[in-house]
């Protein structure tokens, strides 16, 4: 079961890191923050319809709500009446607070308390088993997240060229006949789905960290898309394994520790990246300054 916890953590981390790469490249990380929160409203609404927390409708409802969030934010942005961040700042708290109010008002009895959705609980994940005909098939979240991971990998694998093109040159992509909008919404659907799948193991706050952190680490370390994906996946695996090890060592929250490690590796990459790192940049600036002064002196200008 201790192995299962690590396995779930790794699979959640990798499943989040894959779409995260494109979120970082497209500067959509705040959008993912919005989605991971508004899916809660989808979960709550679907729950009111089905009255069953295990219903697959919850997943579908939440995913649709994520896509609706993206659509609404972008519609607001297109009006040009408010800034891009402002649109996110309006839509996401609105949806999220409606969800919280619905939960506290009508769903107190069910196990849908705001805490469990916000924080998740990786520690409980291996105890929620999937049984079929009396056979124990392992933790439920291991299955759902594996399926989501496979979907994410398949989407990126199949549409790799299109994603690359629309990410780096959307105008050209549109001109040669790719639809950036379709891919965009496809990606956002996956982000929503991943957020929903991960919410009961890592919670909707930390899931953003799992999406953005490893991808940003990759972004800081390379300029090539394939390498960036590779580094992001590797970072996701290493972060979650180290995080869980530390959590057992210090006896703290599992998902919380994994998120901390994710932040730390990201910071390390930020500081020490051989090309884009802060230290490298600072050294470069100092060198240029020195060169500039020596040039000034040589020219006799004071």
């Amino acid at each position: 079961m201790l192995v299962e916890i690590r396995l779930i953590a790794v699979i959640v981390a990798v499943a989040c890191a894959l779409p995260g790469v494109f979120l970082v490249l497209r500067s959509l990380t705040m959008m993912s923050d919005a989605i991971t929160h508004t899916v809660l409203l989808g979960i709550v609404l679907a729950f009111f319809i089905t009255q069953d927390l295990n219903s697959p409708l919850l997943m579908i409802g939440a995913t649709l709500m994520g896509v609706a969030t993206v659509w609404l934010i972008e519609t607001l942005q297109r009006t040009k009446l408010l800034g891009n961040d402002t649109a996110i700042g309006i839509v996401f708290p609105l949806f999220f607070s409606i969800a919280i109010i619905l939960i506290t008002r009508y769903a107190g009895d069910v196990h849908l308390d705001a805490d469990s959705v916000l924080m998740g609980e990786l520690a409980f994940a291996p105890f929620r088993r999937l049984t079929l005909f009396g056979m124990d098939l392992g933790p439920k979240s291991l299955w759902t997240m594996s399926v989501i991971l496979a979907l994410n990998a398949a989407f990126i694998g199949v549409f790799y060229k299109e994603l690359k093109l629309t990410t780096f040159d959307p105008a050209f992509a549109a001109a040669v006949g790719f639809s950036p909008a379709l891919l965009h919404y496809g990606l956002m659907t996956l982000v929503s789905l991943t957020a929903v799948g991960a919410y009961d193991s890592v919670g909707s706050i930390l899931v953003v960290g799992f999406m953005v952190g490893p991808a940003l680490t990759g972004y800081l370390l390379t300029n090539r898309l394939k390498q960036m994906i590779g580094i992001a996946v590797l970072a996701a695996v290493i972060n979650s394994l180290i995080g869980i090890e530390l959590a057992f060592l210090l006896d703290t929250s599992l998902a919380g520790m994994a998120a901390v490690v994710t932040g730390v590796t990201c910071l390390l990459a930020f500081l020490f990246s051989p090309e884009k790192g802060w230290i490298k940049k600072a050294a470069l600036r100092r060198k240029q300054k020195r060169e500039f002064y020596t040039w000034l002196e040589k020219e006799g200008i004071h």
Partner: protein
Amino acid sequence: MKKRAFLLIGMVAVFLAGCQWTATEAGEEDTDALQIVTTTTMITDLVEQIGGEHVQVEGLMGPGVDPHGYQATASDVIDMMEADVVVHNGLHLEAQLGEVFSGLDQQGKDVLVLEESIPEENLLASDDSAEAYDPHIWFSVENWKHSAAYITEKLSVIDPEHAEDYRANNERYQKELDKLEAYIAARIEEVPEESRYLITAHDAFHYFGEAFGFDVIGLQGLNTETEAGTRDVSNLAQFVADHRIKAVFVESSVPTRTIESLQAAVQQRGWEVTIGGELFSDALGDAAQNAETYVKMYRSNIDTIVDALK
């Protein structure tokens, strides 16, 4: 790319295998004692009273921890894995954790729920429309006797070898609870009947009120997570002033802020109400507070209440 992926999977596999090995190494606590995991401190104490030397009890929630705000740590996972028996309160007190516990019977663990031991007519309805019953069952000593008997009966089935000892422990404990009940009743006599109001931050004490003739009013509702509204505060302040209630109480597992704002509101209405002291509600205290067992906790609460109201 593919080669690298395989390498990665290989690395992970080796790592996981390593963890597995260390886990089994560390997990070997060689005792015959029944490994029992409990949720709240009250239940931990109860199981220790009945199980005595034949059980090793691991409580997930420490002293002073509010069950509604409990966060699982890594070691809780290991405790739950190694447990032979898990015991929880039920009636949604433990939220997510309770749900996880209930599912553990599929993994060959015995799941005991105190909720089962209480006759239905003894359960109080909750004011919170969402929950059917008030989960704070331990504040009725009679209920706690039922729970003790229930634990005894279940432990005797699970571990028949020591059934005699469990029964003897239960007999001793029931007597202790009888004494506690007598003590409570005697002390309450010191409070004039018209002053028997217990006003606290959240509604944990209804079973106590029902059993011992107190009017219990909580500011926050059953769940410690819902905040008291401003109207609740002013209504209750009016009530306190009208009934000239001497003291209101804070609780160990709930922040004191709300009850302090109540005190201020009462003062505005021209009545001085004191804060009578700290009551233990959802968790026991520690040895320094002399409230580390259920009986001591209840005595401490009663002393606090009676001394402030008499």
